[in-house]
């Protein structure tokens, strides 16, 4: 009789101590799943895969300069990949990437379109493609990449504009009923050519921020006054703080390589497409044009610290955004190098696209974007404790004069210096 009690006690102690669970070590590969074969476009962004709370994995292919995108969902527990969602709007803008996920949904922003992908049945729908009142087409000029989720509703904050609107509107979008529930006109109302350079999320305010560029007519005959501002918004789509930014007049729409990130010190950071870094808080900004040996690619957020990620001297490197908005000295990102080493071998891939499920072995797969794994514009998705998701590129082949590449998605152990 003492034996069962002993086992029960042992189990209790083990569970209370968090035992029995082993997370991936930094640089360790988990089980990858065959995503599919895609046209091998060198400019494809292959943005970060994400996952919802149920465990479904979402992948998307596209490019900042290509008016084309394709999203798919991998059902949890090896249930296969379904849906090839190709909703996009506006031929002049490309893919921005996944915005956020919740229990069983993922949302992406491509061109001017906000799109929902259902993680249960892979159904995809464009949200608010038309204004319910005027029936004119709506363009999502900027979207804060954070969904505020409560048990009864899901909302996000965006900047939308109809062709007839002189200025865009800041709106709260109810993602369930697909309507905007609050709206506020962009100020100043005489602004012209309002565009977004980039957006970011801030969990503390349940919304985020955006950097906008607009023009205001000057004196008659004079050139318009170009203004660039960082604007912080709350969950009601109200602007709470505005930080004027100088020196970025020449940058155009979607100038940030990926989403901006804000760290624990309150400084947001983004990498511009000329390789410079913009940091700002609610009072001031820094335009960092000299990053030393670091060639910035994007900004990542990991455990409340914002990191500028890039290459330095041919090695993956990383620099933290400091408490004063400047960059700390870059250091080698060991986790990325370890991942690159882990890929220099045969990687077992589970092909669960169709049954019967089989396993394959890919020799020396590569990161599909950039020189080293995870040196990408957008922050890796926090999939589990010290674990993220990564896409890898396997065998290539040609068919009908077109080159194709096999892609797989799986978990990887991750750490930041």
């Amino acid at each position: 009789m003492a034996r069962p009690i002993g086992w029960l006690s042992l189990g209790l102690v083990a569970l209370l101590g968090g035992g029995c669970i082993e997370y991936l070590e930094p640089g360790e590969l988990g089980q990858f799943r065959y995503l599919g074969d895609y046209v091998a476009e060198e400019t494809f962004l292959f943005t970060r895969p994400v996952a919802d709370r149920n465990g479904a994995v979402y992948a998307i292919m596209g490019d900042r300069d290509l008016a084309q995108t394709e999203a798919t969902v991998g059902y949890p527990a090896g249930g296969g990949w379904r849906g090839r969602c190709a909703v996009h709007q506006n031929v002049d803008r490309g893919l921005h990437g996944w915005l956020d996920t919740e229990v069983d949904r993922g949302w992406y922003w491509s061109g001017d379109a906000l799109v929902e992908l259902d993680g249960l049945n892979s159904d995809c729908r464009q949200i608010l493609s038309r204004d319910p009142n005027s029936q004119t087409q709506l363009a999502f000029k900027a979207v804060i990449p954070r969904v505020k989720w409560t048990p009864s509703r899901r909302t996000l904050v965006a900047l939308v504009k109809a062709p007839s609107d002189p200025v865009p509107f800041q709106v709260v979008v109810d993602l369930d009923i697909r309507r905007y529930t609050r709206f506020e006109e962009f100020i100043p109302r005489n602004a012209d050519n309002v565009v977004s350079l980039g957006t970011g999320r801030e969990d503390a305010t349940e919304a985020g921020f955006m950097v906008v560029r607009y023009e205001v007519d000057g004196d008659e005959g004079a050139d318009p006054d170009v203004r660039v501002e960082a604007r912080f918004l709350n969950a009601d789509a109200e602007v709470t703080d505005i930080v004027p930014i100088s020196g970025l007049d020449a940058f155009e729409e979607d100038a940030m390589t990926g989403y901006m990130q804000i760290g624990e010190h309150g400084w947001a950071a983004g990498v511009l497409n000329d390789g410079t870094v913009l940091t700002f808080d609610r009072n001031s900004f820094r335009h960092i044009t000299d990053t030393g040996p670091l060639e910035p690619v994007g900004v990542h957020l990991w455990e409340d610290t914002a990191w500028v990620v890039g290459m330095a001297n041919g090695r993956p490197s990383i620099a933290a955004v400091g408490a004063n908005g400047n960059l700390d000295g870059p250091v080698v990102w060991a986790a990325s190098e370890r991942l690159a080493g882990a890929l220099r071998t045969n990687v077992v891939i589970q092909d669960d696209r169709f049954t019967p499920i089989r396993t394959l072995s890919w020799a020396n797969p590569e990161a599909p974007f950039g020189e080293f794994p995870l040196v990408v514009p957008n922050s890796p998705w926090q999939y589990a404790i010290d674990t993220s998701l990564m896409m890898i590129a396997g065998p290539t082949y040609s068919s009908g004069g077109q080159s194709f590449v096999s892609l797989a998605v799986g978990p990887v152990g991750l750490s930041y210096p």
Partner: protein
Amino acid sequence: MSLRISTLLGAGLLLASSTAAAAPPPPPDVPDPAPEPAAEAEPPPAAQPDRDPAQTVEPEPVPAPSETTPPPEPESEPKSDEKPRPFKTDYLTIEGYIQPQYTYRVRRGARPRDQQEFGAQQTRAGLIFGGNVLPRWSYRTHFVVGSQITEVVSGIDSADYEGDGSTEALSTNTRLIPGVDLEQLWVNYRPVQYVSDSGVEWVRLDLKLGQMRVPFSKQNKTQNNSLLFPRRNAAVTSFLVGSDLGGEVTLNVADERFTIAGGVFNGTGLAVNRDNRRGPLWAGRFEVAPLGSLGNYESDLERHEKPAFAVGSGLLYSPTRLFDSAGNDTLTRSRGLLVSAFAKFVYYGFYLQGEFIRSQVTDNLSSRPFISTGSYGQLSFMIPKTEKFFVGPSGSFGWTASEQAVNPLNRYYTTDGISLFLPNEHRADAIRVSLLYQAEWFVDEGQSAQGGVMQVQLKF
């Protein structure tokens, strides 16, 4: 051999609790499982008044032994907490409860339609049939009936999200209709029972098969009409809901001072989707009450004159294979492990109980464990205001944290208020009227709700 060991252990427990008084008076509710019946040949016991010290109902005269049939042999004497009821024979006992309940709740931050909830939707009733068909064989069925307990699709509407007159999707209309839920449906066989001449039940072994609550959590094991509050704490229902199908073995030693139970179930009672999972659910639980069994009733209507307590722990293990929606094997193997621990204390009307549950689910594919934790504490104090009724202030506080390996969702719950207990000649809580304040805070999701509940519970 095992019987001897159990007996020795029971004796040790008894010695260890030498300061304890005799077994406490019977609780005001029917314990689960049903007590072993008297031999079939024996007549039903004469109706006895409730000897619960909490009750002051005028006792009825007890027939002299010579006026009744001889008492049963000690070995077959029922170790029973049951009290006489009007609808009781050896073969069939009918009992139940009715719980009309009115709820008013305000949920800030919700969609306007959902910001206020009111009505008596949660009204329900339970109908329990139990009995004994042969010595050592008993059965029990427990139906839960509600006027709005089953949700059905009542129609389909077209959804025009864009407002342009075109149909973008179909939405289903649902409504709640009367329904019946099966809480218990089991047959119990008792192969071993030893009661000493002094009336101490040294050992009892029960084998149960059917639908029942799995032996894991103290409160989940407690029946609907024995709860302190109208519903179980969310810290428990986040892990287990309802009952499950399977078999259970229960060993009670030394007048239930030590209980160990184990079984294997289908796993339908887990609060997770198991549509495409297949695998057994192994459950085990032990409970130690050195000063005497406290049963599963939540409160101290008996007003124990000496302090008494119970502690215990439970373990669930659920290895499953995962299949896709077409029924094909995904090669994914999942492992669910849950552990619980509880403590209960009663003394002179004061009741305190706390429980902790932790769950972790892992698999060989995702490298993503699902970890959740929950705990609650609740207390009450029974005050006899007059000879006819008790007043019992009570309160509880619960906490759950789900998906702790990624983005933890912390939720807090509280229920506080007062209950009035009106006894009859059969039980101390024949009628209970509860007025309660309820609140929940979903701190990581930015939503909260507050409201009130009035529930009347009538037992028959």
